[in-house]
């Protein structure tokens, strides 16, 4: 017996049939509703061990000694490994290899891995880890900008050689990106109204439900097979192989079922630890984090402090913007440099502003490491600039939507980077649409009939607790709009690889699609099969499990997979199609002149002319031939931003969404009920409308969480609430109706005209909700999440 529950047969069971533009059901849906879908934490192997990680209880400490003897004596323990046991590279990282596989002489954050244990039962591994004695000397942690840049601040990563080290103002700054355009000094003179504000964003967690997990199986050739939940197999592989001291072809990775990601699986978590334990013990090792550990097992959204100043003329035209965005990157770099680039380049929002002076930077501190999370730098900026828009509208006596309309970005306008937006940018239209949606009824908690009024407290702030029956409840309405980039930016070689094979199986033409795309729940597998059906005119499409036997698909992040891997599949299908036509011409060309003269298509399992005449069955054309094409595909290139001026063609594509939030606030208790969160978004082309709606509603809800609930509370570098008891994500009771208006304005540069969907709705939901609470309460509210005490002043 080998691995009895491996993903190959347990993450796909395609029944679906639809093509591009249809709401085809998910190919993995049936397995997911029956409980048979194999998530990484469900994997099992005969004779497998369980791994467990010992983590630092301190934010910043020197390790003086580690004593493993007690742990090694626990019956059932097979291995205990520390930094001293590492066979090769000792550090890894997404952009900068600054993260220790296991800490050596210092820990720089709460929860940093110090040792790993393998045992025959997960509880045995936990108990053995608890018997490891680590002698720490605690150090004073760096927790904010002031302590990071103080004259006597310790340098957290001395001797930096990374690409940003030379241009940062201080070694505790990971990366700094200024953007200057126009003449802010001259524009200040023209400004009749100036508004400024300081804003703060708490640390948000991705809180994917499927914990970090995987199974590492040592192989006879000295290599290892790793089944794991990740967002980017090849990025893991690039970091992992050097740590194991193995060539990449001996580290074979297969994607197992992924229970959500949202950016939190871009960095390595248990990958290296499980592989090291498996190679050390010669046995399969499974690691599954529990929720407590998961809060330490991945990076979070950067908390941020932002200072913004906008000046406008009396007609409501913004004359200039200055802002400074300080992101707390925590102990290790992770994706901080790219987050800085996004925060800076999208810092002005979806507005045409000719004169800007923007500065964004990320700090090294001893707080938890921060990196990718849905919205990636644009979320923090959006809360600040949208709060500013409301403030400016109030100062000018304009409706918030009217002020935004007067300054809205549109196609042909320039971003602060100088990049001209060369596809539709319907910012004003999205605001118009979201404003035009019908409003939810007033006093929606009341049902009136002949018998009188009935109150359902569940529809009020406080809900079931029955803290109000409508008294003290005030409604507010708020609007916001945001802009997010799609795809990897700033000159990154962002590509994907697709292999498409077409052959006849049991008399039917069948296409098989193989990529390394990580399906994390977004529905990429659905859309990829739809593309193959549309391009090849076949009903049967098999999606091969994602693994490293094929080239990289890039990351399932940056709203990019439908665009980039979808683009790669479409391109491979086009090449397959040409080969089919060549084959048809060779076999049947003499039967009908249209083979030589007409535009040929594949539809309904046949070769047809553009006039609709069927020339041959695809199955007959193929015969015994197997057409097999593997290709890399790239979107158009981008450029790095100038390190001093921030100018450059930085982004592949922009994505826009707008929200209108309707809230009811119990002003006495500070409790907020979001009654409705309407969203309008331009998606270019909805390849699967049902999935698009699901992305918009899910993204909006994560924005709601940031507005009202979600914050990792960190004090002196220590995480205070690493559980779902104390870190609250929205429940179905917290989440309102989310009507969605989808606009489809094709981007001529993108496959099918599509626009990445997943992130934009996460941006504007937060400021729209906070604007609605401001409208209800009249309070300034400069920080999210908004807590009851911010509303009651207690």
């Amino acid at each position, binding site marked *: 017996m080998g691995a009895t*529950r491996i993903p190959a047969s347990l993450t796909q069971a395609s*029944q*679906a*049939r*639809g093509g591009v533009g*249809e*709401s*085809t*059901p*998910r190919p*993995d*849906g*049936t397995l*997911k*509703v*029956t*409980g*048979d*879908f*194999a*998530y990484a*934490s*469900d994997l*099992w192997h005969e004779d497998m061990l369980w791994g467990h990680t010992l983590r630092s209880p301190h934010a910043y400490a020197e390790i003086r000694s580690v004593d493993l003897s007690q742990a090694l004596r626990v019956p059932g323990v097979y291995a205990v490994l520390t930094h001293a046991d590492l066979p090769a590279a000792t550090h890894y990282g997404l952009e900068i290899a600054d993260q220790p596989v296991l800490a050596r002489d210092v820990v720089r954050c709460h929860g940093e891995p110090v040792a790993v244990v393998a045992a025959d*039962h997960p*509880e045995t591994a936990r108990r053995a880890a608890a018997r490891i004695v680590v002698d720490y000397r605690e150090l004073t942690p760096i927790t904010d900008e002031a302590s990071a840049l103080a004259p006597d601040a310790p340098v957290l990563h001395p001797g930096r050689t990374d690409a940003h080290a030379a241009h940062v103002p201080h070694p505790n700054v990971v990366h700094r990106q200024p953007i200057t355009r126009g003449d802010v000094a001259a524009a200040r003179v023209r400004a009749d109204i100036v508004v400024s504000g300081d804003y703060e964003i708490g640390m948000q967690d*991705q*809180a*994917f*439900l*499927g*914990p970090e997990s995987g199974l590492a199986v040592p192989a006879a050739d000295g290599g290892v097979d790793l089944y794991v939940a990740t967002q980017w197999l090849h990025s893991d592989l690039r970091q992992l192989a050097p740590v194991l001291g193995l060539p990449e072809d001996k580290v074979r990775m297969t994607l197992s*079922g992924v*229970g*959500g*990601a949202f950016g939190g699986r871009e960095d390595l978590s248990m990958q290296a630890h499980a592989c090291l334990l498996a190679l050390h013990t010669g046995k399969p090792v499974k690691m599954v984090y*529990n*929720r407590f550990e998961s809060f330490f097992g991945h990076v979070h959204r950067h908390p941020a402090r932002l200072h913004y100043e906008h000046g406008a003329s009396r007609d409501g035209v913004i004359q200039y913007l200055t802002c400074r965005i300080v992101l707390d990157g925590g102990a290790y770099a992770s994706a901080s440099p790219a987050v800085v680039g996004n925060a800076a380049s999208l810092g002005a929002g979806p507005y045409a502003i000719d004169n800007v002076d923007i500065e964004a930077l990320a700090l090294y501190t001893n707080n938890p490491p921060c990196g990718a999370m849905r919205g990636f730098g644009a979320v923090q900026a959006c809360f600040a600039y949208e709060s500013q828009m409301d403030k400016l509208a109030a100062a000018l006596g304009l409706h918030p939507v009217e002020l935004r309309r007067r300054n809205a970005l549109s196609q042909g306008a320039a971003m602060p980077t100088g990049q001209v937006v060369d596809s539709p940018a319907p910012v004003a239209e999205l605001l118009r649409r979201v404003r035009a949606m019908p409003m939810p009824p007033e006093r929606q908690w009341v049902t009136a009939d002949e018998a009188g009024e009935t109150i359902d407290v*569940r529809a009020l702030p406080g809900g079931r607790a029955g803290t109000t029956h409508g008294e003290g409840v005030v409604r507010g309405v708020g609007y916001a709009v945001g802009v997010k980039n799609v795809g990897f930016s700033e000159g990154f070689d962002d590509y994907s690889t697709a292999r498409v094979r077409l052959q006849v199986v049991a008399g039917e033409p069948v296409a098989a699609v193989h990529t390394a795309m990580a399906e994390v*729940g*977004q*529905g990429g597998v659905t859309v990829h099969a739809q593309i193959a059906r549309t391009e090849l005119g076949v009903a049967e499409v098999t999606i091969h499990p994602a693994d490293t036997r094929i080239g990289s698909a890039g990351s399932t992040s940056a709203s990019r997979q439908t665009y980039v891997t979808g683009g790669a599949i479409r391109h491979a299908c086009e090449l397959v199609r040409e080969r089919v036509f060549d084959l048809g011409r060779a076999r049947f060309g003499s039967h009908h002149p249209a083979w030589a003269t007409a535009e040929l298509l594949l539809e309904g399992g046949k070769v047809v002319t553009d006039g609709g005449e069927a020339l041959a069955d695809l199955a007959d054309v193929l015969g015994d031939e197997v057409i097999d094409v593997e290709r890399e595909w790239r979107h158009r290139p981008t450029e790095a931003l100038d390190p001093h001026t921030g100018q450059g063609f930085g982004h592949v594509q922009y994505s826009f969404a707008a929200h209108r939030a309707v809230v009811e606030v119990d002003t006495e208790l500070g409790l907020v009920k979001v009654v409705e969160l309407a969203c309008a978004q331009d998606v270019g082309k909805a390849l699967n409308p*049902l*999935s698009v709606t*699901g992305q918009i*509603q*899910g993204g*909006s*809800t*994560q924005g709601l969480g940031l507005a009202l609930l979600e914050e990792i509370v960190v004090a002196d570098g220590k995480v205070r609430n690493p*559980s*779902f*008891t104390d870190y609250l994500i*929205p*429940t*179905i*009771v917290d*989440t309102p*109706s*989310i009507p969605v208006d989808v606009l489809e304005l094709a981007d001529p540069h993108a496959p099918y005209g599509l626009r990445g969907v997943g992130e934009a709705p996460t941006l504007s939901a937060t400021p729209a909700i906070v604007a609605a609470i401001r409208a209800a309460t009249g309070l300034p509210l400069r920080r999210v999440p908004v807590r009851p005490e911010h509303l009651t002043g207690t």
Partner: protein
Amino acid sequence: MRVNLTVNGRPQTADDVWEGESLLYVLRERLGLPGSKNACEQGECGSCTVRLDGVPVCACLVAAGQAHEREVLTVEGLADHARQRAADRPATHDTPAPPPDTPEPAPGTDLAAARSWQASPADPANSELAPIQQAFLDAGAVQCGFCTPGLLVAADELLERTSEPSDEDIREALAGNLCRCTGYEAIMDAVRLAAARASQGG
């Protein structure tokens, strides 16, 4: 210790169970039923929701010993359970229909409205799934799917005792089940859809 329990209608025995093991661990790691999920193991997320003698519980908070000699229903048994339930019920035509001139105001959503959310069902005629499972697929209520098993067990239990739940009823019944992907709208749609299909006999 040894634990004897009935899972999805079948007698099961788990040996060498450590006193601290949860019902969830025994189901997942000892009985080969990993459908119930381990998202928080603190009773906060509902991903491990199973029914213990008919009552929805978080399996992570039930000690394995507490399930001794009791009946457990997991997502793996949901389709069988729904079939059994349908077989145990009187046939629809035996139920007196309400007079046509006094329409009851339906607190739920009617089938026509509910159908507007559906994906084209994969195989509606021959589904071997429980109606709530099919409705989750058709309404797009499954993304990553990690919350899905617990939600299905909870939603199925709701519909078993409340045939026409209002939206607030649905929200209240599912308040203990976290979902991070969907924003719950499609889950609401799925439960409305399953309720509408059941009330209209299809």
